[in-house]
Structures are given as C-alpha cells and as structure tokens.
C-alpha cells in the first residue's frame, strides 16, 4: 500500500512540463528541431525543450539512437540545429563556447603527449594563463589519483585512468558548465561506480552545472538532481523526474535508501526496460 502511494507521488512529478519561457537557466533549450537531411531525411530531435539551472546536475536518459548525444552536441555548439532556440548563460549558442567543457565517451588523450601535458592541452588551446593551468593540473592529478603517472603516456594507463585524465583536462578549464556524453560508457561496471563517486565528490566541491548523457538508470539516479527521459527517435523529452535524495551522496547511504530503488524502478518502467 505504502509502496503504491510512493509510486503515485513519483508519477505526479514525472509528467513532463515545458520549461517556462522566462525561467533563467544556465542551459535553455526551447522547441529544438534537428533534422538530418538527405534522401531519407529523419528528425533526430523534435520539439525538445529543457532548462538546466545553474549548479544543477541533470542527466538525460533515453534509448540508443534517440538523439541524446546530438542534443549534447547542439548545446556544446558542435552541431547546428534546424529550429528552436538554444541559450547558454542567456546567450544563443553559435559555436563552441569557453563557458562549456565537454567530456566525451572516448578518452581523447593524444598518444604522443604525457598524461600531464594532455591534461594541460585543453587550457593551452583555450589560451588560458599557463601558470594557473600548471597549478590546477597539479592539483587535479592528485585529486584524480593520477599521482606518479604524470610522465606516463596514455597507452600505459588503464581505461579508467585515461578517462579520469580526460575529465581532469576539462576540469582544468574551470568551465561553468560541464557536458558529459556517456563519459563512463566504455568502462567496466566496477570502474564506472568508482568514477561516479569521484565525479560526485568533485561536483560537490565545485558545483558546476552538469548535463550528463547516460544510458545507465542507476548512474542517473545516483548522481542527478533531475533525470530527463527521452523518447525513441525522433527524440523528445517525455519525463522530467526530480531526484529527491539527500546530499552529499555516498554509495553507502544512497544505495540502501528505499527511495533510490523506487526511482530506479519507476524510471525502468517508463523506459520499458524491466
């Protein structure tokens, strides 16, 4: 009985509501359409609207091929959209912005540079002051457990360490907004869990705005303030679920929390995966 009540309550907040037009957010996406032209033209995204407030951690879940990566690339200014509006810090997105850092699924380390040089590369390409970058990277190396590997090359590292270094490269940019496209998708489950905990710790320290694309429901619930669920192609946001779990979140006090399980069950049901 209590269980059913819980679900009903959850449902009440899961109905997708279009973002109010005036609500200020770090990321505002309004009625975005993305069409892939050609002989068999398809709409990858249709009427996608979402708002991510400053310092909010939002995950986007959806079946594969639903256009969630495309959505991230549109927000990152890497891919143009066909209709609608995309605002980052109230400015329309016209291309890659220095306010945004993007972490991709692949580690993107350059094999000919050491871990340390790789981690500094992003800041160098963005022409950030060298001294500050060196100090920041030194700090990040410690924080990400890469001490002793600074002078190694990426191929000498495990996949998990490479991805940590990739995240470090982006964090060294100190971006206000972090976009992550399945950053742990290529890693094994154990490494993934560990990196999730680390990611949360970093986020709780720095409080950046995060938009995370993932296909792991557990990951989304564990990390996020809100989880947005997308439909199959053409992608469209069908649910907006507020994750009301206490912070700071640690696996030992979240994974045993009954609400954590209920969120997972509810989202699994929405996505038809159980």
């Amino acid at each position, binding site marked *: 009985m209590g269980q059913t009540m819980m679900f009903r309550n959850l449902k009440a907040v899961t109905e997708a509501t279009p973002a109010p037009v005036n609500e200020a957010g770090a990321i505002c996406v309004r009625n975005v359409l993305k069409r892939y032209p050609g002989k068999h033209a398809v709409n990858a995204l249709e009427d996608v609207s979402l708002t991510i407030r400053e310092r909010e951690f939002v995950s986007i879940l959806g079946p594969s091929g639903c256009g969630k990566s495309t959505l991230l690339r549109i927000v*990152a200014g*890497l891919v143009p959209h066909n209709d609608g509006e995309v605002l980052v810090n109230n400015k329309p997105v016209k291309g*890659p*912005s*220095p306010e*945004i850092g*993007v972490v*991709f699924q*692949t*580690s*993107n*380390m*350059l*094999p*000919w540079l050491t871990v340390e040089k790789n981690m500094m*590369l*992003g800041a160098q*390409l*963005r022409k950030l002051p060298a001294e500050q970058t060196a100090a920041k990277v030194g700090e990040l190396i410690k924080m990400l457990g890469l001490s002793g590997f600074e002078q190694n*090359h*990426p*191929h000498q590292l495990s996949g998990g360490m*490479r991805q940590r270094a990739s995240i470090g490269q982006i964090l060294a*940019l100190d971006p206000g907004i972090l976009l992550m496209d399945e950053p742990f998708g290529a890693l094994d489950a154990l490494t993934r869990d560990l990196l999730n905990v680390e990611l949360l710790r970093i986020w709780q320290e720095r409080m950046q705005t995060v938009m995370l694309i993932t296909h792991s429901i557990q990951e989304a619930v564990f990390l996020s303030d809100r989880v947005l669920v997308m439909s199959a192609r053409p992608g469209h946001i069908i649910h907006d679920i507020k994750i009301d779990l206490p912070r700071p979140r640690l696996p030992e006090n979240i994974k045993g929390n009954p609400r954590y399980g209920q969120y997972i069950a509810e989202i699994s049901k929405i996505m038809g995966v159980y």
Partner: protein
Amino acid sequence: MKRWIEAIVFWGAFALLWEYGVAALGVRRYLLPPLSAVVLAGWDAREMVVSDTWVTLVEVMVGFIAAVCGGVVLGVLIHFSDFTRRTLYPFITALQSMPKIALAPLMIVWFGYGFASKIAATFLFAFFPVVIATLGGLSGIAANLDEHFRALGASRWDTFWRLHVPAALPSFIDGIKISMPLAVIGAIVGEFIGSEEGLGHLITLATANAKTDLMFAAILVITVLATFLYWIVEMMSRLVWWRGKAV
C-alpha cells in the same frame, strides 16, 4: 651479442658462397666474377667509384628532399582544400599510374644530360608515395579527436600543428620509407639514360667495356648506399613511437 654473431655468420656464409661457389660451379668470370675480383675492381677504380658515389648521393638527396617537401605540400593542399581535391587529386592519381621509367628519357630531353634531369627523375620516382602517405595520415585522424579540438575552441593553426601533424606522422614516415629506395632507383635510371657521371653511369661504362667485375662493384656500392639511406629513415621513424598507440 648473439644477434651480431648470427649476422656475421650469415653474411660470411654469403660471401664465401659467392667467392667459391662461382669457381666450383664453373661460372664464367664475365657472367659472375668471384667476390674478391669485384672488390679488387672497385678498389682499382676507387677514385671513380668515390666521385660517382658522391654524385649519385647528392642527386638522391636533393631529389628526395624535394619530393618529400613537394609531396607534403601537395598532400596537405589536397586534404584541406575541396578545390584541389576535386581537380588535382584525380590528376595526381592518373600521373601516379603512369610508369615513371617511361618518363625518364623525357627528363633528359627537358633538362639535359646534367644534374637537373637526375633530380627530376629522382623526384618523379619518390614523389607520389609521399603524397599518398601524407593524405592517408591526414584523413586517418580519428573524428573524435577533431571534434574534441573543436569543442576546446582550438584555432585552425593549433589543430594543424598539435593534432594533424603528429597524428599523420606515422603514415607519413611509412611513405618516406617507400620513397627513399625509389629515389635511389630514380637517380640510377636517370643516369642510365644519359649522363657523364654517377654510379648509374659507372654501370653503363663497365658494361660497355665488358668489365663485369666493376659493374658488380658499382651495384654493391649502390646497394650499400641505398641500405644506409633506408636505415637513416628507419632510425627517424623510431622517433614516431606512437604508431598504433591510438587510445
């Protein structure tokens, strides 16, 4: 240490087989002289051999370096400009299919019997592999790295020097490895067709005078020269250690 012994034993056996094999099999000296006769003939003509080797070496180096520079420039142009890709690339592909050796006489007609025609022939032989390898290296760059650089707001200059160049280097070096021996062939072919000096000229001269031993001496020197040049390229290619280390 053991490898050295292996090499010495192998080459020693080869030299001995040559030296005594020809006599044992009764091969006539004008067909295949024993190794000692070859070395002796080379030594007797040492002044000519040294000056001819120098001439050929210079031809090879100048032609080869010109081919590498030209090949890289053209490869980069074709890769980054749609216009050259549409126009020059098919043209280059057609030229590449042409037997270069058939063009060597033309080089003599155009550039005369001197240095220039040998450089032209060397260039012709060595040029195409560099273009193809440069293009292959540039187009083989992982799309995710290009996107990553774009997301980081990298300038075109930075993207070229910090991503495209190092990423294309392994393939480029492979092209150089093919190109280096071809440059030697180009110089020799140029000298065969018309010249007054160089190791190719020495071979034709020895042939005309029925001095098979001197001809073999010239061939040996060319082989050593080409092997040495290839070895230098091989050493250089080891600097590009990240070949196949994509992560």
